[in-house]
């Protein structure tokens, strides 16, 4: 994504000096840094709002509101975005809902990164039949209809945050495994792996000291994109009533609840939708920025 600042001149034959040279370089560096720090700051802000602000700020609880307070309009005193039909503060619900979404996303991606990353790196490193078996099993998981699994987990274990994490991990693990495997295969071809082994370095050490550091950047950027995807998927599960059960808020179940009053009070759909959107785009931009920085495809 890093591209020259000047408007493209075909053939590059342009004797015109475009501004002082140093300034061009500095501006470019600033912008390159900005493509990471701006979304990173946004992500931090979202985390701070969802996890820290409710602890220290004047945020009413997201549930158990009084019916007397129901359906207050936005910007009512003490209720930034008003209240819902049961009198709960919408701003608070947004924050707590975000907390649930982010917790699920973090859990799912952590499991995917660790389990999937290890599986994929192992499969790619050893190759042969073990690789084939692992990849076929993961193929089955990928082809397995997400919905059946989500329903199964929701009905068998009851809907809830932890169970949403389990359900979504079934998809993050194979996804991370594939990425890790592909990256490992690429690293494996490098001569520095051969060089390490000819130096007498053992397999475990090679895997830990040579392979892992070289595939972690790729897995990290994927995890950031994965955060965005998972937040959306968690929303979808909750939307279908398979994720976090009401009255506890999640952006997904808030959107689902808002669907009923879409024509009269669109804010109950639009507010959690906007929160979802901002969160996802922050993660996407951060992942994209890091990917450009680390020079991967």
């Amino acid at each position, binding site marked *: 994504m890093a591209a020259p*600042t000047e408007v493209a001149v075909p053939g590059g034959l342009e004797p015109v000096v475009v501004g002082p040279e140093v300034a061009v370089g500095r501006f470019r560096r600033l912008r390159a840094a900005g493509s990471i720090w701006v979304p990173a700051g946004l992500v931090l802000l979202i985390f701070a709002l969802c996890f820290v602000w409710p602890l220290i700020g004047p945020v009413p609880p997201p549930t158990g509101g009084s019916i007397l307070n129901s359906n207050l309009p936005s910007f009512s005193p003490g209720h930034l975005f008003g209240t819902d039909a049961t009198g709960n503060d919408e701003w608070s619900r947004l924050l707590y809902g975000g907390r649930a979404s982010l917790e699920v996303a973090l859990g799912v991606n952590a499991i995917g990164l660790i389990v999937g990353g290890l599986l994929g790196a192992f499969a790619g490193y050893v190759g042969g039949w073990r690789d084939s078996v692992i990849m076929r099993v993961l193929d089955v998981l990928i082809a397995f209809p997400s919905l059946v699994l989500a329903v199964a987990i929701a009905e068998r274990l009851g809907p809830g945050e932890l169970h949403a994490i389990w359900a979504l991990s079934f998809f993050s693990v194979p996804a991370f495994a594939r990425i890790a495997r592909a990256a490992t295969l690429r690293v494996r071809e490098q001569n520095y792996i051969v060089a390490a082994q000819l130096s007498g370095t053992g397999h475990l050490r090679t895997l830990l000291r040579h392979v892992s550091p070289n595939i972690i950047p790729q897995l990290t950027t994927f995890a950031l994109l994965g955060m*965005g995807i998972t937040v959306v998927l968690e929303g979808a599960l909750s939307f279908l009533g398979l994720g976090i059960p009401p009255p506890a808020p999640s952006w997904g179940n808030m959107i689902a609840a*808002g669907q009923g009053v879409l024509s009269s009070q669109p804010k109950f*759909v639009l507010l959690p939708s906007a929160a979802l959107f901002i969160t996802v785009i922050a993660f996407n931009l951060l992942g994209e920025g890091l990917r450009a920085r680390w020079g991967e495809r």
Partner: protein
Amino acid sequence: MSSSASASLPAPVAGRAGPLARVTGSPLLQFLGRRLLAAIVVLWGVTFLTFVVLNHLPGNAAQQLLGINATPAEIHQLSVKLGLDKPLLTRYGEWLHGLVTGSLGHSLASGQSVTSILASDLPVTFELIAFAFVISLGFAVPIALLAARRPAGIFDRASMLLSMAGLSIANYVLALVLVYFFAVKLNWLPALGWVPPSRSLSQNLKYLIMPAVSIALALLCFYARLLRADLVEQLRDEDYVTTARAKGVGPWRIILRHALRNSVFGLITVVALNLGTLLGATVIIEQIFGLPGIGHELLSAINSRDVPVVEGTVLVFGVIVVLANLIADLLYSALDPRVKYGSAN
């Protein structure tokens, strides 16, 4: 003093395995055979896993059919009638046997044959997906070409920023926003329902446009970004582009004739892989817009523990995903002359 026998050892005529090799059929057939075998294993795994998972859910079809007020005796009676009392492996065996003989069984809920249910639902989903693909590719390719023509130009910046935004909108959110504006506020489009194309094509498209756009937007943005990145990379890094420029070939011809042809492979693979995730997306979109498609059917079948219908649907999903990947590979070989099954590069 002949110092060593170093070079004087007889050179063996090893490895002269002539071309009279065992020819086991054309390379393409070999390739298809391999892929088919892998596909069968995967499909078997998926259907078996689904079977096991469904049978471990609380309540069975009999219970779901009869409702909460049914007595255990009634449930047992119906279970026996539906064959649900047999052991799991037996029932899976029966299902497999049916599959081999060309029958997907009957719905436990309605008694309809699964084949006929699929036949009525699949076209709706197919049309939705096809429509979404047409929209996404139809817009993504020109956007990517225009953006790649002048990297870092105004169009490039704007389209890439917008596409990043589009990529970040969840399809169900987009669906609701579309409904709010176009159905509720403007009242241009129907919010719910479905008209078969056989009755009225224009009505059909009118009902389908919002669901299709809901699915297509993220894809569109994704494809546009992917193709644009690939094109820019080709134009910047590939030596054959420099050759074409050195020949005096114009910029548009270089993009269309040289870069696009080589960039399109990546896109094709991704499109095929997307088909799998797209099937998942249809469930929620069909639910929102009340489309009688396969996703909708699947959701209700799971809820009523209608194992044959779920299995049939899962199987169809699986087959589509496998086929899509296979077609992607074949297209790849058709477009890229370097990939020929069974020939070394």
